[in-house]
C-alpha cells in the first residue's frame, strides 16, 4: 500500500460513557475506494464522523498527512476532507446551485468575494451529478434521489481529495444508486480522489470498492479486497447471516445471497 494520508491510531470513540469504537487501527488507502460495511449500530457512521473531525476521539487519534487532525482548523481540514452526512437539513428555500455553492466555504475568507474558480467548481460539481438542468430548482422540492445528488454535489464543490460518504445510496432508486457509485469510481480512477463510503448493499460495495472494511461492535473483523471480505465466514460473524457467496460473472467480484439469520 502507498503511504496512507488518512489513518486512525488506537482510536476510541464514545458517546458519553457508552463506547462505540474500541482501540481501532485503520489506514485509508489513498486514491482508492474503500467501503465500510457492518450491521446497524456497529459504529461505522461514528467512525466516519471521527475521520472527518466531527467526533472527537475519547482516546487515540485520527492522523492526516502525519499530524493529528485535531491540530488543524476546521477550515483547513475541510479543504482536505469532505463529508456527506447521513441526515442533512432540508435546506429550505435554497436552490440546488445555492446549496452546491456552500461547498466553497473552506476556500473563501469571511468577507471574500465569489471568484471565477468558485463558480467553476460549482459547475463541475453540477455536471458530475447531472444536476445542471435542476440548478434553479428548490432543494426541498426535489425527490429523495435528486436531493441526495445535490448534497453530493455540494461535497464535490469542496474539491477535497478525500471524500467520506455516509450511506450515499440510501433513498436512491436503483438507477441513481448505480449512478452515484459509478461517479465515486470515476472520481477515484480519473481524479485520483480517495473515497470512503458506508454502504449497505454488500454486492454493490464489492463491485465498486477497491477495499472493504467490515465492522462489528466497534471492531474491524475483516478488511482487504472484496473477495477477502465478502465471505460466508465474515457474513456469519458480522451480520449473523448465513449466506451463499457467488462470483459476479461480469466483474469477478463476490455476490452475496443471504439465506437465513443464525443465532449469535
Amino acid at each position: 500500500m502507498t503511504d496512507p494520508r488518512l489513518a486512525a491510531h488506537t482510536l476510541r470513540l464514545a458517546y458519553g460513557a457508552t463506547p462505540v469504537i474500541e482501540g481501532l487501527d485503520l489506514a485509508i488507502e489513498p486514491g482508492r475506494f474503500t467501503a465500510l460495511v457492518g450491521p446497524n449500530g456497529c459504529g461505522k457512521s461514528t467512525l466516519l464522523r471521527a475521520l472527518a473531525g466531527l467526533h472527537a476521539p475519547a482516546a487515540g487519534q485520527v492522523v492526516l498527512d502525519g499530524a493529528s487532525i485535531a491540530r488543524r482548523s476546521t477550515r483547513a481540514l475541510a479543504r482536505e476532507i469532505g463529508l456527506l452526512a447521513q441526515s442533512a437539513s432540508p435546506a429550505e428555500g435554497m436552490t440546488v446551485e445555492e446549496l452546491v455553492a456552500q461547498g466553497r466555504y473552506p476556500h473563501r475568507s469571511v468577507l471574500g468575494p465569489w471568484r471565477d474558480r468558485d463558480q467553476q467548481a460549482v459547475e463541475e460539481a453540477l455536471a458530475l451529478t447531472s444536476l445542471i438542468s435542476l440548478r434553479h430548482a428548490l432543494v426541498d422540492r426535489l425527490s429523495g434521489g435528486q436531493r441526495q445528488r445535490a448534497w453530493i454535489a455540494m461535497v464535490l464543490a469542496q474539491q477535497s481529495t478525500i471524500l467520506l460518504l455516509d450511506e450515499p445510496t440510501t433513498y436512491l432508486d436503483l438507477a441513481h444508486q448505480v449512478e452515484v457509485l459509478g461517479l465515486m469510481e470515476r472520481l477515484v480512477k480519473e481524479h485520483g480522489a480517495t473515497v470512503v463510503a458506508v454502504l449497505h448493499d454488500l454486492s454493490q460495495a464489492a463491485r465498486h470498492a477497491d477495499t472493504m472494511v467490515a465492522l462489528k461492535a466497534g471492531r474491524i473483523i475483516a478488511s482487504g479486497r472484496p473477495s477477502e471480505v465478502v465471505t460466508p465466514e465474515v457474513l456469519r460473524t458480522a451480520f449473523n447471516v448465513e449466506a451463499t457467496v457467488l462470483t459476479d460473472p461480469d466483474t469477478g467480484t463476490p455476490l452475496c445471497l443471504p439465506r437465513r439469520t443464525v443465532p449469535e
Partner: protein
Amino acid sequence: MTRTAACALGLVLLILLVALWSLATGAAGLSVAEAARALLAPGEGRADAILWQVRLPRVVAAIVAGAALGAAGAIMQAVTGNPLAEPGLLGVNAGAAFVVVLALSVFGVTASAALIWCAFGGAGSAAVLVYAMASAGRGGGTPIRLVLAGVIVATFLGALTTAILLIDSQTLDAVRFWTAGSLKGRQLAQILPVLPYAALSLAAALVFARQFTTLSLGGDVARSIGQNPALWRAIAACCVVGLAGSAVSIAGPLGFVGLVVPHMVRLTLGGGYGRILPLSILGGAALTLLADTAPRALLSVDMPAGITLALIGAPFFIWLARSHGAVRG
C-alpha cells in the same frame, strides 16, 4: 436577482409612502403637503412642532425597531434551525423589557445610554436561559421545546414586569405605552442614542448573512464544510441581542415581526440569508410602520403596534406550526 431587487425597491417605496401617511395622520389635522413641508424645511410653526416632536419620532421608532426585529427573527431561525424562532416568542424581548423596567424602578436608572445596556443584558440573559432550558434533558432542543421554554420565560418575565409596575406607579406612568408595544409619545431624544447600536447590529447582520446561511444547514454540515459553528453561533447571538435590545429600547417588546416577516420573504423569494436578511429588514420596517399607522388612520383608534402585530402574528404562528409539523417536534 432582479426579482429580489424589485421586491426590495417595492418595500422601500412602501415604507416611504406609509411614513408619509403616518406623518399626515393624527389628532391634529395636518395635510400631507404640510407634513412634507415641515419635514423638508423645518420652521417654528405648529405643524413643525407636531411633526418633529410627535409624529416623526413614531415613524423612526417603527422603522428602526421593525427592521431590527425582522433581522433578529431571520438570524434566530437560521441558527436554531427552528421555523418558530423569533425574539418575541423566545423570550428575548421580554428579558430586555424586564431588565429595563427593573433598572428604571428599582435602581432608578434613567440615562438612555445605561438603559440600552440594560436591554442588551436582559436580552442576552433571557436568550441563554431559554436555550439552556430547551437543551436540558434527553433529546436536546427540538423546535417545540425551544418555543415552550421561550414562552415560559417570556410569560414569567412579563408577569414580573407587570408586578413591578403595579407596585411602582411612577415608573408605570413613564413606561405604560412602551411596555404595551405602543409607539405613542416616543421622543427623538430617546431614540437617537439607540440608533448607533441598531445600525451596527444591522450592518453586522448583513455582512455575516452568508455565515448564517451556512449555519442554517446544521452544525454537522457547517463543520464539515469548514465553518466553526460554535464561534458563529456566538456571533449570531451577539447580533440578535444587539438587534432585539435596540428594538426593545425604542419600541418595547414587539412580538411576531421576527416571525412573520422572514417567512414571508422565504415563501416569496426563498434562498439563502444573503437574500432573506436584507428583505427581512425592509419588510420588518414596513410591517411595523403599517401596524402603527393603519389602525390610527383607518379606524381612528390609536392601537399599540404590539397589539396589531399580535392580531396578525398569532394566526400566522398557528398556520406555521401546523404546516411545518413543528408540533410533532
